[in-house]
């Protein structure tokens, strides 16, 4: 790695791969940093080295990611794997850690493409061993060809049905699907249906998934209104309620999912402004037409800015790269606009279905705001909902005071799994909008870093020994 690059891209999912490829093709010095050992991000995880015999399992959408990986390799962009970015300053000084060595480098332009993570699902017992996310199940399938027979799938959202579908295609039995999509969502989604119908292909795909799940004979329980995960040391069963009746399923494995949300930690720690999206119930980066944030030289592309899906992420990655190239004076504005135009067309098409999906699979309040006092809100510090409520009653107006009073957000995940929950809980208790409550103030290091690495860090760029 050199000390300085024209453009640094963080994250090798579709947005990051596309951005880095474009930048390299235009001859600038570009570095792509990613934590994983190979490119692909989460959605195209391991697509470049996928070895499953039956390609129908993961489906054609997944394998399309190979084109991005090939294009990246062909472009000659420098791609450093196993690299954790723990700092991004507003002046674009980047702290990276690889193989136990931390170093600093700088860039004229940074494109963050850190993608998305799963929305927290704070129900009683969600911290028990044996409870995982549907996304986690999909990672195991993609990266290790592993699947868990007879698990329960619970939640709502396209990814839940997709993974269940992939299990069916792989011949893996599913114990049951507990669908928490609220009844009221159909009506809520109706106004967005006309626009969604323009993306008929995507709608039909969803319907096919549902049909295949039904055809596989999997117990599919709809409109589940409440969930409790049971067990002492490990999961032993799940209780679910629908229409005032509680029922129980014995199971030791459950995959939860209620949508994905942007991974905002690095962007927020860099000082990029975010606004609350009520449509997606998460924080969206405030960006302009070129994906640039209010911090000059820092752009955010892909699901890291707001959830739009993989194809949209690719387009936005390229748009961000064209914008960065123009700011680096490698493209004039006209060339930039011309190159971006087809990307913008595809982006618009991809975004058409989004309001419908957001409304249709909007998680209910009960599953975002735990009502049971004992439900753990902060997994790392094991802070129950009661403590959050008590702290707000004591006068905490926002998540940062709440952190000081309750320890929520002080663990290694740095609020990734509790941040949204606490902002929404505080807003509800105070009776104010989430936008007013705000988010946890994040600072580097955004991922844990060993003291030995920090101690050995050469802070003057000239004194960093050359490393490749």
């Amino acid at each position, binding site marked *: 790695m050199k000390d300085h690059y024209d453009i640094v891209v963080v994250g090798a999912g579709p947005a990051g791969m596309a951005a880095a490829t474009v930048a390299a093709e235009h001859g600038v010095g570009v570095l792509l940093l990613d934590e994983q050992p190979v490119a692909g991000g989460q959605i195209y995880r391991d697509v470049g080295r996928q070895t499953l015999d039956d390609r129908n399992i993961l489906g054609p959408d997944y394998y399309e990611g190979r084109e991005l990986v090939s294009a990246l390799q062909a472009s000659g962009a420098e791609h450093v794997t196993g690299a954790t970015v723990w700092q991004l300053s507003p002046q674009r000084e980047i702290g990276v850690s690889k193989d136990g060595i931390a170093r600093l480098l700088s860039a004229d332009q940074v494109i963050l493409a850190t993608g998305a993570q799963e929305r927290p699902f704070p129900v009683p017992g969600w911290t028990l061993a044996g409870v995982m996310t549907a996304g986690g199940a999909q990672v195991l399938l993609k990266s290790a060809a592993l699947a868990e027979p007879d698990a329960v799938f619970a939640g709502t959202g396209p990814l839940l049905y997709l993974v269940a579908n992939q299990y069916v295609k792989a011949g893996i039995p599913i114990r049951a699907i507990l669908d928490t999509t609220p009844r009221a969502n159909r009506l809520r989604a109706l106004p967005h249906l006309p626009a969604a119908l323009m993306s008929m292909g995507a709608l039909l795909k969803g319907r096919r998934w549902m049909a295949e799940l039904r055809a596989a004979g999997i117990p599919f329980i709809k409109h589940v209104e409440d969930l409790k995960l049971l067990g002492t040391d490990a999961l032993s069963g799940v209780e679910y309620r629908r229409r005032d009746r509680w029922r129980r399923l014995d199971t030791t494995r459950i995959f939860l999912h209620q949508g994905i949300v942007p991974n905002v930690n690095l962007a927020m720690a860099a000082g990029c402004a975010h606004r609350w999206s009520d449509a997606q119930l998460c924080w969206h980066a405030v960006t302009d037409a070129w994906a640039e944030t209010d911090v000059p030289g820092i752009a955010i592309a892909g699901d890291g800015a707001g959830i739009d899906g993989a194809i949209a992420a690719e387009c936005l990655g390229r748009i961000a790269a064209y914008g960065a190239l123009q700011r680096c004076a490698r493209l004039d504005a006209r060339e930039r606009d011309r190159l971006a135009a087809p990307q913008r067309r595809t982006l618009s098409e991809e975004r058409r279905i989004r309001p419908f999906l957001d409304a249709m699979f909007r998680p209910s309040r009960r599953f975002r705001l735990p009502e049971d006092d004992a439900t753990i809100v902060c997994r790392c510090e094991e802070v129950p909902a009661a403590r959050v409520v008590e702290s707000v009653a004591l006068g905490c107006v926002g998540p940062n005071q709440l952190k*000081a*009073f309750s320890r929520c957000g002080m663990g290694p995940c740095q609020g990734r799994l509790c941040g949204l929950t606490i902002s929404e809980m505080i807003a509800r208790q105070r009776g104010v909008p989430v936008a007013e409550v705000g988010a946890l103030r994040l600072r580097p290091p955004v991922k844990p870093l*060993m*003291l030995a690495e*920090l*101690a050995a860090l050469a802070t003057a760029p000239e004194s960093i020994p050359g490393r490749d």
Partner: protein
Amino acid sequence: MGAALAFGLQRRGLSTLMLDEGDIAFRAARGNFGLVWVQGKGVDFPPYAHWTWTSAQSWSDLNAEIEEITGEDIGYRRPGGAEVCIDAGELETTRAEMQRLQSHAPHFEYQMLDRKALSELLPGLGPEVAGGCYSPADGHVNPLLLLRGLHQCLTAKGGRIETGSRVIAIQQRGSAFAVDTTGKRHHGARLVLAAGLGTRELAAMIGLDIPLRPERGQILVTERLRPFLSLPLARIRQTVEGSVQLGASNEDAGLDEGTRVSVMNRIAARAVRVFPHLERARVVRAWGALRIMTPDSYPIYAQSQRHPGAFAAVCHSGVTLAAAHVLHLAAGIAEGALPEALSPMNTRRFGYA
């Protein structure tokens, strides 16, 4: 500071309203290291050394009172504390400082220790340490629990807290003060300004000039570790939960964001020199704390001549001085005049009233 004085006044029977800015306020209080520290304080300024001593000696009373009212342990312990000196130069400077301190504060006990003696006190002490200074007078507390505890005590005694209130104007109306926030007007017979860095602007509204500047310090916090350090050190402290706090003391200066990594590097480098086994500890969070710095670093306690009944108080050792503030300073404010012992810490020492 504000919470301590508010509680101090309320517990003396004065109905007290504390106006508090909001979620991103509490910055200084939240950034405090948590030391209840005597050694090295006021080495060349006896009134501050004495005030610190007074506070340290009454801290267990404050702790007992907080625990009695809230039922919670805020983590106050007084096992003594140590300053670790990594080279002969630091050791000599510390020795000289302690001698000067003891010359006007003979009750202050300390022991200079060479590396071998210090390592018996601090298992795991690194080989590249020159020695240090131990004082039985030092201790520590969980600063966040202290803050929360003071809030709880204030309200338990009948005091009120209004959060999300930014003060925009202050006037004296007859013998009372009218304080305007963005939404409301409040009246009080006494006014106490203890708003950290914001005190300067507020104090100007009542004709008090309080010279302040922010000085950024940094704290690194590690993942929870099994207990290995029972004594607080000036720059390293293991909390009850097991995480280790690492601070930069007075070394850092400036507000420039660009210096942050260099500060983290300095803190980390020193920490692993003091305790080499910490090399494998992970830093899980870091934050910058804005210290409230007066021109000579000592507190300012001021009362307005033009507007009697109005007071301003700022310091950067709000945790150490919490007991003095709750139990002694509040008494003076309640009676309408600052204790005589604090007059060397008013603003006249800077050449203006």
